[in-house]
């Protein structure tokens, strides 16, 4: 079963090789640069893990949502909601003691991510609004809302004074910097992400609520028939999903950037982590633990691609295209897995049927 994503990944890499060759670069040299960029030094490895952290948060959120049968594509917007709200808390309560402010900021990020996704969940459950469309729209609304605030109310006063008007906040107070794990960019948020991966696993497979969340994803009619309040659990799945993504956004601010910024585009702050996290979750077979190595792999690709761009002038957008291919290959090959499972089921069924028949005949 785990073979399918690996095969999908290798196939995507093969197509990537052809694309690199087309661009007139020796694929071996390009991949060498990529590998070196992702794993070549302690700093490179740390950067890979730092890049993987938001992907893991988004991926975990996606695991919950997709398992519940709701397609939350709003990772981008929920990251922004989390990052923006945490930033505003840190800017306004800078005099609080560090650890209280950190917990407060992360909690508010968690909450705002939940609210942002909850809107889509509510619209889906009670108004039957297609959640893919609503979450995409919420992505844009969040991004433009953030851009507006960064260009005005929360812009760094120094930018206004100097007249440079770069849309970013001032650097947040040092007391909210998440602790570093080793003297690199690696921060405590990664550990939080891994802990949450385990918690999500326990939630989905070891609690009654988690069981119901998965059940509405597998068979909505049967869930309704067995008395589960489908709408409630649908909204819950969205809220939990968005909460994890929002927390990821808050951690990006406190752990990596220490300020909020934008380049004016809709993925200026997130770097498309909201979409890449979906790839990570699918790649990890929608399993929270499987999403950990999947995020690391994508984090390595993204980090390596930046270095590759500088070394051999292959634009890092290549990885974006490959990510899309990975999604297509994973969902496409899912059919093979399902039909195989069905065939096995059928043979098992026909065996038991013939057994029963034999029994009846002998009676």
């Amino acid at each position, binding site marked *: 079963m785990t073979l399918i994503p690996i095969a999908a990944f290798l196939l995507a890499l093969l197509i990537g090789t052809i694309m690199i060759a087309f661009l007139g670069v020796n694929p071996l040299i390009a991949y060498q640069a990529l590998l070196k960029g992702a794993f070549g030094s302690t700093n490179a490895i740390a950067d890979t893990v730092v890049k993987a952290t938001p992907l893991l948060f988004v991926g975990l959120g996606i695991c919950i949502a997709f398992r519940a049968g709701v397609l939350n594509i709003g990772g981008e917007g929920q990251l922004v909601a989390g990052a923006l709200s945490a930033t505003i808390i840190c800017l306004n309560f800078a005099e609080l003691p560090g650890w209280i402010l950190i917990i407060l900021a992360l909690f508010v990020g968690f909450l705002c991510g939940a609210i942002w996704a909850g809107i889509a969940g509510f619209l889906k459950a009670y108004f*039957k609004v297609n959640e*893919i469309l609503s979450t995409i729209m919420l992505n*844009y609304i969040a991004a*433009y809302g953030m851009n507006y605030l960064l260009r005005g109310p929360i812009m760094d006063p120094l930018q206004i004074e100097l007249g440079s008007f770069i849309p970013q906040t001032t650097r947040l107070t040092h007391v909210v910097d998440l602790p570093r794990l080793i003297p690199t960019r690696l921060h405590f948020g990664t550990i939080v992400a891994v802990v949450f991966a385990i918690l999500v696993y326990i939630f989905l497979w070891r609690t009654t609520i988690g069981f119901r969340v998965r059940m509405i994803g597998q068979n909505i009619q049967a869930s309704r028939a067995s008395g589960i309040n489908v709408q409630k659990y649908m909204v819950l799945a969205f809220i939990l999903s968005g909460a994890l993504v929002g927390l990821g956004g808050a951690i990006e601010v406190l752990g990596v950037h220490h300020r909020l910024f934008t380049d004016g585009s809709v993925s200026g702050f997130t770097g498309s982590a909201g979409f890449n996290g979906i790839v990570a979750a699918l790649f990890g077979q929608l399993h929270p633990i499987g999403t950990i190595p999947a995020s690391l792999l994508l984090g390595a690709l993204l980090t390596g691609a930046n270095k590759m761009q500088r070394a051999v002038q292959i634009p890092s957008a290549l990885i974006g295209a490959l990510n*899309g291919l990975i999604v*297509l290959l994973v969902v496409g090959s899912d059919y093979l897995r399902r039909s195989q499972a069905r065939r096995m089921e059928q043979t098992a069924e026909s065996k038991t049927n013939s057994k029963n028949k034999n029994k009846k005949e002998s009676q």
Partner: protein
Amino acid sequence: MEAIIIGIAKSAIRLATPYLYASIGETIGQLSGVLNLGVDGVMLMGAFSAFYTVLKTGNLWLGLLVAIVVGAIFGLLIAFINVTLKAEQGISGIGVYIFGLGLSSLLFSTMVGTVQTVSGFSPLSIPWLSNLPIAGEIFFHQNILVYGAFALIPLAWFILNKTPLGLSIRAVGQNPEAADSLGVSIVRIRYFTVVLGGMLSGIAGASLSIALLNVFQQNLTNGMGFIAVALVYFGAWRPTTVLIGALLFSTVNAIQIWVQVHGINIPSDFTLMMPYIVTIVVLAAMAKRRIHPPAALNKPFERGE
């Protein structure tokens, strides 16, 4: 005041163009039971390929043709994954979007690099009609792709409602088992509608890059393809109501651009947000109407044994 309204109306008609092509293509696909959420990715590829062809050859029609071919190739890919491999259509659409976005950005940065403009389709005044007061200025001083988009509405309506092909398409989307038992090939119809949808998305993208904006940059569409999908829900799978939806959105866009150009004191980020807010509100409002999507939408066909 009159000049302002005419100006906004004229640009609303222009800006409806990409929505119309993409939404009509998506409508036909969804009527046959295939939900394609990758429209935005295909539009980006169409926009880039048309733009690049025009940049290199200066031939607008060749650019349009290349966009159609690229759209058809993407349509084939989408049909293969959704129809043949029976993938979960919501997720595969996101895959197509990410792929199209990534590939068009990759090609743009390696083959073009900097933001450049081309001279696109120029306005074509329709004799006599263009002299009409007000309406002439609004409707009949547009470029050929705008006329094409509006001509597409009655054409799609006719094909869907008055031809055997349209009947087959709707049968495949409503009741594939019955269609199958009558000898209609589900696979062939769905491939046809999805490839056609891909071609129309390609034209939608080209209309942006070589007729309306005459420029390409990364993520040029900015989610327009998703709004086009939303318009299909808004239009309740009918070309005529899709047209109303497209005009609603293009009017919002036109007002937004007008406000921005005239430096009215509303932050541009707010006006940019408007189409997306309108989409959500409209989708929620639609829920009150009792209109159901094609019964087999997003359901791969499995022939019962």
